[in-house]
């Protein structure tokens, strides 16, 4: 009896030793202390309002909590500038320590060796606090390279309640209502009010239609799959919106659709979560939010690509900086910090934050969260660029009536394959 107790305890001891050895690679930096004065250089590409209303106050709170850390926030221009400048500065040996970036930069940054793998730096406790979709969103080939702060960046259907009472369930209903609201008020032969506006020639918008027809841009090995029935259907559908139903403005880019909606000249718009705050405050808009309607053919709702923004740590940082960076990320994704994001209509990455009344009780936020569930994560592989650049010209040609959907699908596939090959 006693013997068996000893055997068991030896066994336990041995097992715990094995486990602790196994966990030795696990650094759990969020549980370590910062012992030196550390300056963290953070580069971001957020809009001005977010910089001053979310980031700066949070940084201030963080610095008060960790008095030996200073966070220097630098706005690096557009999202493209952020990527290029980070890379340039890194190669010049300067660069940031942390980047707050859209998920897509994970692709190039991890392949070029700029992004620090984080799996071993974060404790399991820290990892457990995120929603299931969060960390995989910033992972590639099984490694985590970033920690999301906000989830979404997804398109949804928004409507102006001053013009229409409620959002339709299916596309045929939407088209009907939109037709009734596409009018030439002053009789000069030119339409003044539109039923629907969205960014006609932008693949990111088209992808929501494509997904609704059950299409997806890649197969499992990241080979493009664009010459499909779904592609043809989705192209035909957006073509019809413009040429047959005539419910959208003839040339409509982002800034134009945005201006039209703000002026109260559009009933429905398809736009992303980033635009909610501006529309809530616009005086001509009483904002409603709903999922992009269902397509009769597939029975599926519009399926926007989802993404988000999160922190990427640069490689080759000294340990003290790494600890400070992980602590900072941990802080920025705490429920308290995430509440500020929620207040600005972003969906958080922190699981608990979804219980906040701001999400539970606000119809707009609820609608946004609902739409997020209909979305599908945008691939972060750099090959995605090759797909976008193949879709865009073909889509434009269809929308200017130069190319049939069938020919366009074929062209997309061919160009996507060429683009991806040229990158290797």
């Amino acid at each position, binding site marked *: 009896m006693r013997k068996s107790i000893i055997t068991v305890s030896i066994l336990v001891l041995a097992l715990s030793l094995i486990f602790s050895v196994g966990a030795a690679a696990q650094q759990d930096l969020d549980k370590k202390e910062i012992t030196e004065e550390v300056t963290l*250089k953070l*580069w971001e*590409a*957020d*809009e*001005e*309002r*977010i910089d001053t209303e979310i980031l700066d106050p949070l940084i201030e709170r963080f610095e008060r909590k960790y008095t030996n850390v200073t966070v*220097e926030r*630098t*706005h*690096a*221009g*557009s*999202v493209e*500038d952020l990527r290029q*400048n980070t890379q*340039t*500065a890194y*190669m*010049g*040996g*300067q660069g940031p320590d942390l980047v707050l970036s*859209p998920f897509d930069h994970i692709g190039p940054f991890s392949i070029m060796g700029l992004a620090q793998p984080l799996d071993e730096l974060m404790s399991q406790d820290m990892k457990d606090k995120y929603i299931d979709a969060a960390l995989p969103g910033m992972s590639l080939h099984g490694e985590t390279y970033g920690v999301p702060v906000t989830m979404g960046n997804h398109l949804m259907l928004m409507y102006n309640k001053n013009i229409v009472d409620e959002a339709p369930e299916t596309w045929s209903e939407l088209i009907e209502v939109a037709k009734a609201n596409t009018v030439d008020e002053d009789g000069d032969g030119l339409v*003044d009010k539109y039923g629907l506006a969205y960014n006609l020639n932008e693949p990111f918008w088209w992808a929501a239609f494509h997904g609704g027809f059950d299409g997806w841009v890649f197969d499992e090995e990241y080979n493009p799959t664009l010459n499909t029935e779904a592609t043809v259907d989705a192209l035909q559908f957006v073509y019809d919106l413009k040429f047959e139903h005539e419910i959208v403005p003839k040339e409509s880019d*982002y*800034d*134009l659709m*945005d*201006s*039209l909606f*703000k*002026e109260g*000249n559009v009933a429905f718009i398809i736009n*992303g979560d*980033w*635009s909610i705050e*501006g529309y809530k*405050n*616009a*005086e001509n808009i009483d904002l409603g939010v709903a999922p992009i309607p269902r397509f009769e053919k597939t029975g599926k709702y519009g399926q926007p690509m989802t993404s988000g923004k999160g922190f990427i740590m640069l490689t080759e940082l000294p340990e003290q900086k790494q600890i400070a960076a992980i602590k900072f990320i941990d802080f920025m994704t705490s429920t308290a910090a995430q509440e500020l994001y929620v207040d600005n209509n972003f969906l958080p990455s922190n699981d608990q934050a979804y219980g906040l009344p701001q999400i539970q009780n606000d119809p707009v936020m609820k609608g946004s969260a609902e739409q997020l569930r209909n979305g599908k994560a945008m691939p972060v592989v750099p090959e995605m660029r090759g797909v976008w650049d193949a879709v865009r010209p073909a889509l434009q040609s269809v929308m200017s009536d130069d190319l049939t959907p069938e020919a366009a699908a074929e062209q997309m596939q061919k160009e996507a394959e060429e683009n991806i090959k040229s990158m290797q």
Partner: protein
Amino acid sequence: MSVKKDPTWKKVVFHIILIISVIIAVYPALRVFGTSLRPGDSLHSTSLAIIPDNATFEAYRTLIFDKGFLVWLRNSLLVTFFTVIIGVSLASTAGYVFSRKRFPGRKGGLTFFLLTQMFPATMLLLPMYILLAQFGLTEQTIVVPFLGMAKAHIGLIIMYSSTALPLCVWQMKGYYDTIPESLEEAALVDGLNQFQAFYKIILPLAKPALVITALFSFMTAWNEYMVARVVMTDNSLYTLPVGLTNLAGQFNTAWAQFAAASVLIMIPVMAIFLLLSRFLVGGLTLGGVKG
């Protein structure tokens, strides 16, 4: 120097042409101004009116009082001032010998200045940054406290001067070519040395070219942001165009402020232009001196 007076019908035609041209030149700029007055940050408007409904100067107020506009303005003036000084002084001397002297390497030198402009600039950005970083010229530390000049500003000044110099050198050379050499010959006979002849006789005659050179150097430094964007990371050291790009986000841009900043950036340019263009016309020219 103006030629003889034109008959009235001709003047009317000129005025009509000029008025139409001015409208075309100014209209897009007026739309920028209109955007700056628009509440709610829309870039476009469906109305053609320049002044929007419920126009507001709020964007200007925010920009000047809440953002670092005045600091950015000072930084830009600083960088631009030194770029102009370097551009004008180095180009006026280099252009002079290219025009007057025959020496080994003259043609090669002239071509060299041209070639520096031929390589697509975007591809030069990365190695230029690495170069500046090597010399510590990307550091944000202040080196001339009373001017608020940082090492990175010096980097920019060098960068901009070298960008502006090729045109400036060629421009000065082209203008010197039109000034008769007999003027210096006379000066040399009068006992001036080569540099004095250049400095006292020729340089004053080349004022129109100096004005163009100054204006061009000014514009190069004033509006550049590709390099500055990477080099400047400290908000208080930004030049105006970098501060301007700060207002642009991925989707939502503070268009009203962005436009307001663009209008404000333009004002010093117009002022400089008015100031300098006095020297461009009448009175101080070669003809004037000779006549």
